[in-house]
């Protein structure tokens, strides 16, 4: 007599969120569980929907930048950059070289800040308390630097259509160099503390494995895709700004498990550090803003521009009807597309690993819901 004949078992629905601290915001997932195993997972989103795309249709191009600040609120400058690039492509203007260097420096610093936050919060998702202190400490240094350059810690509105708002302060280069040394020490510290820790390895190795074909069919991009073993990086494959002048590696993982997804971000931190250093070496004096009208009014047309955000491949589809307000702004948010791969990753995982898998995708709900 087998167990099935004796007991009539049914799958159990377990609701997680939207106020669960490990979901990094207001994200709800409904887990269908069979004992300790996850059979199915249904993500529910929309708790932070602000209608940014619709709002953008009623704002002038310069004002839309402030909305993009608030999409991925951990990597604001990367978001500003992608919208400004889209508008520039539409208008056919090219920002001056110094402006592009400043943009890339700020974007890479913001990538560092975002990854440091990920390292900290991922560790705390798994129950390790210390790394979040180190992660936040280093991120705070980067934000102080942003404050001295842009005037704000998070919502900068600094990258403008045609360049950047103003030139960097006089002591920018030495200050950033000192900052990079500090941050490198901090990243190394987090790395040493967490990466090869036995408990951390046990929690993440072989958990939430996803192979490249599945990942591609789900639309997974960014460090999470590279962890599976595909070297897709928009900065390398579709170069923009001054990225072609910089030499850097694209870290690629092997197994596509949670540990790889974590480790890709640690390695990217080191790459970003070296990229900012190269930018500082190559940067020359010059204008930071292209010659253009103060009010941007692109000609009729549409454009799709994408770039590499800390979370993956962000795209903006921008339609202009020739007025000073965009006709349509569509964002392809990496966090939202990465969430699709949650189901294949979580299937047959333990409940205890659900948080580890969700955390390893590094979603930001401001971007998922927009």
């Amino acid at each position, binding site marked *: 007599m087998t167990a099935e004949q004796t007991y009539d078992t049914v799958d159990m629905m377990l609701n997680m969120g939207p106020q669960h601290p490990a979901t990094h915001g207001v994200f709800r997932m409904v887990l269908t569980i069979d004992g300790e195993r996850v059979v199915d997972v249904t993500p529910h989103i929309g708790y932070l929907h602000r209608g940014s795309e619709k709002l953008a249709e009623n704002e002038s191009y310069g004002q839309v930048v402030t909305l993009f600040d608030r999409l991925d609120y951990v990597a604001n400058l990367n978001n500003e950059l992608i919208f400004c690039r889209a508008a520039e492509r539409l208008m056919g203007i090219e920002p001056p070289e110094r402006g592009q260097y400043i943009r890339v420096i700020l974007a890479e610093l913001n990538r560092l800040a975002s990854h440091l936050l990920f390292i900290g919060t991922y560790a705390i998702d798994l129950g390790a308390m210390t790394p979040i202190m180190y992660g936040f400490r280093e991120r705070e240094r980067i934000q102080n630097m942003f404050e001295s350059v842009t*005037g*704000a810690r998070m919502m900068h509105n600094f990258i403008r259509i045609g360049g950047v708002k103003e030139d960097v302060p006089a002591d920018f280069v030495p200050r950033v160099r000192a900052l990079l040394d500090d941050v490198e020490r901090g990243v190394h510290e987090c790395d040493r503390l967490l990466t090869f820790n036995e408990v951390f390895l046990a929690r993440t190795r072989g958990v939430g494995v996803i192979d490249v074909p599945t990942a591609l069919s789900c639309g997974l991009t960014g460090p999470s895709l590279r962890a599976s073993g595909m070297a897709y990086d928009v900065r390398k494959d579709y170069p923009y700004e001054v990225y072609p002048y910089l030499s850097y590696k694209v870290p690629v993982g092997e197994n596509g498990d949670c540990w790889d997804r974590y480790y890709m971000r640690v390695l990217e931190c080191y790459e970003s550090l070296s990229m900012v250093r190269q930018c500082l070496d190559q940067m020359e004096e010059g204008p930071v803003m292209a010659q253009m009208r*103060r009010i941007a009014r692109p000609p009729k047309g549409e454009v799709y521009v994408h770039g590499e955000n800390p979370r993956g491949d962000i795209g903006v589809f921008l339609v202009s009807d020739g007025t000073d307000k965009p006709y349509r702004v569509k964002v392809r948010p990496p966090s939202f597309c990465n969430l699709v791969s949650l189901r294949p990753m979580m299937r047959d995982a333990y409940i205890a690993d659900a948080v580890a898998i969700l955390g390893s995708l590094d979603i930001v709900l401001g971007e998922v819901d927009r």
Partner: protein
Amino acid sequence: MIGTFKGLLTTARWLLKRPVTAHYPEQHLPVQQRYMGFPALLMDDTADEPFCTGCMVCVRECPTQCMSAQMHDNPNFTDGTSHRRKIINEFEINLNRCILCGICVDVCSFDAIEMSYEHELASYARTGSRADLPQLLDLGRRYVDMSGWSPANAEKNVAEVALAKRAAAAAAKAASAGDDASTDEPTEGGE
């Protein structure tokens, strides 16, 4: 097991160092030179009136529509102590709506509005964050004291300088120089 000891060693290293955190209400960290706090209006001390001419560009360009202003004819212009034909008599900013984007400062061509260092404006009253003209000018004065701000385009916007320039031009041409560009509405675009 080794990883645990390595972790303990890393944390122990920081045990004797100075903490990096600041205890906020007791300890205030200084803001950076470029810090953008709440917007403030600035005073033209040479004419004892605000720089603002009420052209409404900032009101129109604000992404959150947090400002409102009213202008009237400037009595000082008829007296000849100012070059501004129009002046504001009311200006209100709802600081709760303000998102500190700095667009108002960018579009202003009269050096009239600036992002101050003010960032602690909690109040008990529901309308406590609605700053009117005297309050905004007060913020502006404090900002000037702290940052040593001076108008970027003094030749055009400071009353004393602009009047002297105008008088010189009038003397040179021996004709009235009534069509000075500074009192015109700024044209959109065309930098």
